[in-house]
């Protein structure tokens, strides 16, 4: 019985109880710290990096880690730490916009499907969900490659491709949760009071389906970082001179015999970011949805 445990409109705010439990939840704490580090790295790099990230300094190329260059320098003598800090920007930009796009469109479509179904127009729901089923034939990387073939490689193309992939993911979750909310007594009461489906969705459905959507947003953010890194590695995502972790890995691969550590740092940065977001998502799921917590 999902609906019975959904948060009711009166107490949907993050009560003090949630935060007290959050501080004791190990994966939420570790995940939040790692995610905060990612955001801090990107924010810091906006106005400060140890060295100018794009400054080429051939005499200082391929240096090992030292006091001056904590993580060493790359083939062009650029400071690896500075490149990594700036690279966090690409990951965050892609994550935020792609997930925002996917969630915005997906939740709208999901809520529309649920509202139409509850108001006797099941065929709209049916059509929308069959479309969502169908998009599984095109995984994010495949649609990104298709778009790149047409519009050329670039950050925007990869954001759009990853965003499109997220639309059915969010639509499905929003629809599933919203259908349950539409059967609740307080929605029946609101309908009896003459509220339009749009207002019911805005005031009653959305606040009650927020938890699973927040969890999904965290997980999708992690997936977006991985997809952006893969596209940039292939040279189809972020374009030079803007540094990105995927590109740094591509550059490092040709230097594996001279400077193996160059291939370690960017990958570790991706892994820690994704790990942080996934752990935070797991933690949020436990904290926001007591039912799932008990099922484990």
């Amino acid at each position, binding site marked *: 019985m999902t609906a019975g445990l959904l948060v009711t409109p009166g107490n949907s705010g993050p009560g003090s109880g949630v935060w007290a439990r959050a501080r004791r939840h190990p994966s939420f704490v570790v995940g939040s710290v790692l995610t905060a580090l990612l955001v801090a790295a990107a924010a810091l790099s906006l106005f400060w990096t140890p060295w100018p990230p794009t400054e080429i300094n051939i005499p200082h190329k391929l240096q090992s880690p030292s006091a001056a260059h904590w993580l060493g320098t790359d083939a062009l003598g650029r400071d690896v730490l500075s490149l990594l800090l700036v690279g966090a920007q690409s990951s965050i930009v892609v994550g935020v916009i792609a997930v925002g796009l996917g969630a915005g469109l997906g939740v709208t479509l999901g809520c529309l499907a649920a509202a139409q179904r509850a108001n006797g127009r099941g065929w709209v729901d049916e059509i929308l969900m069959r479309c969502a*089923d*169908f998009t*599984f*034939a*095109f*995984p*994010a*990387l*495949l649609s990104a*490659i*298709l*778009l*790149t*073939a*047409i*519009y050329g490689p670039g950050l925007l193309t990869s954001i759009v491709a990853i965003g499109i992939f997220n639309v059915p993911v969010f639509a499905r979750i929003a629809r599933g949760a919203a259908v349950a909310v539409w059967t609740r007594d307080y929605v029946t009461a609101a309908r009896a009071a003459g509220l339009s489906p749009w207002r019911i969705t805005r005031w009653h459905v959305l606040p009650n389906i927020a938890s699973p959507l927040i969890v999904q947003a965290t997980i999708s953010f*992690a997936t977006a970082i*991985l997809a952006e*890194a*893969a596209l940039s*590695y*292939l*040279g*189809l995502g972020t374009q030079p001179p803007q540094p990105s972790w995927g590109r740094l*890995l591509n550059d*490092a*691969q040709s230097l*594996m*015999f001279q400077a*193996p550590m160059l*291939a*370690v740092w*960017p*990958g570790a940065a*991706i*892994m*820690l970011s*994704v*790990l942080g977001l*996934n*752990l935070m998502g797991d933690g949020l799921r436990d904290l926001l949805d007591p039912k799932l917590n008990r*099922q*484990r």
Partner: protein
Amino acid sequence: MLWFVVKRLAGFVATLAVASVVVFAVLELLPGSAAEVILGETATPEAVAALQAQLGLDQPAPTRYLQWVGGLLQGDTARSISYDTPTSQLLAERLRVTLPLAVMAMLLTVVLALGLGIYAAARHHRLGDVGVMTISQLGIAIPNFWFAILLILLFSVQLQWVSAGGFPGWTADEGGGLWPGLKALLLPALSLALVQAAILARMTRSALLDVMREDHVRTARAKGLSRRQALLRHVLRNALIPVLTMAGLQFANLITGTIVVENVFVLPGVGRLIFQAVSNRDLVVVRDVVMLLAALVVLVNLLVDLLYVVVDPRLRRAAA
């Protein structure tokens, strides 16, 4: 049963039909004509017109769509612009690398995931369980192409056991053979399998734990079966449905994963073909490869749907 299969097959064909329309339409929406995109901005109008005629672009879109689909179904495909070979021939060559790679990766995934998942479930809340869960959490976060690079660093650069990439071919004539071929695919398959195995192991564990709480398992334990015996005899089969679903969905990730991993290891497979086709703006190849990969994903989902009925006798009765 027959009705169920017919319904699923109809869904499969319908999905493929829609997918083909989408792929075709997306490439139609191109800013400018395909010929201009292929030739680049510096092309003369005469060259564009000539290529348009060669590609059949002077005909109306529905005619070209039907020609394309008809060609795909009969194996009579258009010629690649950069390779000057029919795409069906290119794909057949490249699938000889990609299919064995995908199958190897899937086998590794299932073996690793079931092993780790069953082990973790049997030691629920003990050290082994915590260890498996921690490793799998890390595994999910590792990008497959980075893991591939790390494997090359360890096995090719440090230990020098295998070459850092390339594929020798399956026959002695090509300079390879069955064993050298398999050896070249081992690291790529492993790097594809790691992430998928981590996800599937977690899924297996939680599916097993869910079934273990059911009454029939409690009865089996009460009759004197050990936790491990009950797990293998009564739980595993019941937990297979969600595990199978997940494995089916993962195949899609695996297929797209080959695009990246084949590039890391410079393997002449479909993934590398589509990457090169994008770089060369060879839209004929892009269109056919995207269609092929989408069809593979849909086909595997169909097979998973049909497998459910084999695994679950309840579904078999419902389907009858």
